[in-house]
């Protein structure tokens, strides 16, 4: 009986000690981002290589099983694509003409920056986070590859998220559909600004919310393109976020809200593009120019 009692007291002490360690760690990581440093490095050399390996194996098995199914599909697709190439060649000729005209007009308006033309580097998604509550994922490039926190991440033509943290060989990305994500956006045709926030309630339907769009005469229709706005200090300007799928006027009659279908396909995210310049760096450059 005595020994059992001893263990009980000890385990309570143990609880207090460990709880104190946790509280201290939390305090430290609130005070400075440096606290995560050692953990980051440890994770970079232990867990991340394993995740990379597992991801490799996972992809390989999926590939092998899919290979057999896809040969037939490929043949039909090939025919289709061949046709598409013909169509596109014709279209390309037309576009080249348009491009020249655009350059001329851009020159007129002194728009020397082509926003969609940021330099990018490809990266692979190697792990999602463990939680069901948040949408953060890990990519296989980090500090060594020049990735820095604050860099924007895209998939295809659409915005996916932002790099929040980097380790030596990995970086974690918070996606725009995460509940804590806020992006300052803009309706492409009217230039009106709105706030785009991830919402856990909408994740099932694959949509994100937008809010605080001022009510104006300009009609916004479904399918309107939404891009990142120039006032954001984290997101580069002019990256496509998605298309308006629903729009309603708020009760106050001054602002509108609604949902956006993201341009990036979040249901099957494997390869992403990281824009290798952050907004902060770009702003600094522009200030120097001025």
């Amino acid at each position, binding site marked *: 009986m005595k020994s059992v009692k001893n*263990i*009980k007291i*000890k*385990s309570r002490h*143990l*609880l207090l000690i*460990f*709880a104190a*360690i*946790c*509280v*201290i*760690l*939390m305090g*430290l*990581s*609130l005070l400075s981002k440096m*606290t*995560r440093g050692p*953990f*980051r490095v440890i*994770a970079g050399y232990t*867990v991340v290589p*394993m*995740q990379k390996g*597992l*991801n490799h194996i*996972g*992809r390989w*098995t*999926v590939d092998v099983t899919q290979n057999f199914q896809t040969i037939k599909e490929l043949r039909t697709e090939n025919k289709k694509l061949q046709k598409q190439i013909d169509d596109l060649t014709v279209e390309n000729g037309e576009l080249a003409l348009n491009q020249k005209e655009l350059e001329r007009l851009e020159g007129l308006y002194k728009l020397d920056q082509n926003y969609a033309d940021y330099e990018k580097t490809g990266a692979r*998604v*190697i*792990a*999602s*986070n*463990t*939680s*069901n*509550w*948040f*949408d*953060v*994922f*890990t990519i296989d490039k980090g500090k060594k590859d020049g990735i820095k926190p604050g860099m924007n991440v895209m998939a295809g033509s659409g915005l996916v998220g932002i790099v*929040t943290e980097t380790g030596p060989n990995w970086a*974690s990305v918070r996606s725009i*559909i995460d*509940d*804590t994500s806020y992006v300052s956006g803009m309706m492409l045709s009217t230039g009106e600004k709105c706030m785009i926030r991830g919402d*856990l*309630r909408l*994740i*099932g339907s*694959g949509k994100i919310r937008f809010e605080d769009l001022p009510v104006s005469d300009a009609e916004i229709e479904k399918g309107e393109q939404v891009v990142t706005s120039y006032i954001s200090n984290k997101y580069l300007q002019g990256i496509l976020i998605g298309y308006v799928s629903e729009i309603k006027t708020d009760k106050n009659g001054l602002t509108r809200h609604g949902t956006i279908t993201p341009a990036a396909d*979040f*249901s*099957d*995210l*494997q390869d992403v593009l990281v824009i290798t310049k952050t907004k902060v760096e770009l702003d600094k450059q522009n200030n120097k120019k001025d």
Partner: protein
Amino acid sequence: MNRYRFIIKILIILVAFLAQSMLFGSISFASVRPNLLLIITALSGFMIGEKEGIWVGFVCGLFWDISSGELIGYYALIFLIIGYFNGRFHSLFFDEDVRLPLTAVAVSDLVFGLIVCVTQFFLRGRFAFGTYLFRIILPELLFTVLVTLMLYPLIIRYSRFAYDFEQRRSGKFV
């Protein structure tokens, strides 16, 4: 505690963590995954005792903290408290009855879900409790309990083996 058991436990936690963050070919959002780290924490506490629950919970939580979230120590604290309270009910444990361990895991997962819901969502002013409950907490709970049920025979076999091994080493049966 025995050195071998410690190493094996760490390995089990590592495997669970990798499985939980694995992508199965591609990432898919809006899907619910079982909370394997919580199973380990809850069962360690419930089957072995308070101390085991505390340190296993701490390690599991730390893994979680590193993989997501900005605060180091936040999930570690939640997990170690869950481990400790499971340990408080260790005296009820009887390894041929699967219902109690399942209940322990279920209650732990529910508590975990509610804590995350309150601290990470309510405190930010997002009160869609119904959605959170039916879209995340309950599906996760069901899935986690199901996985526990499937893994339970394996867990029991391992724990009996570990127990025998330790007894033999300490020379009680020799």
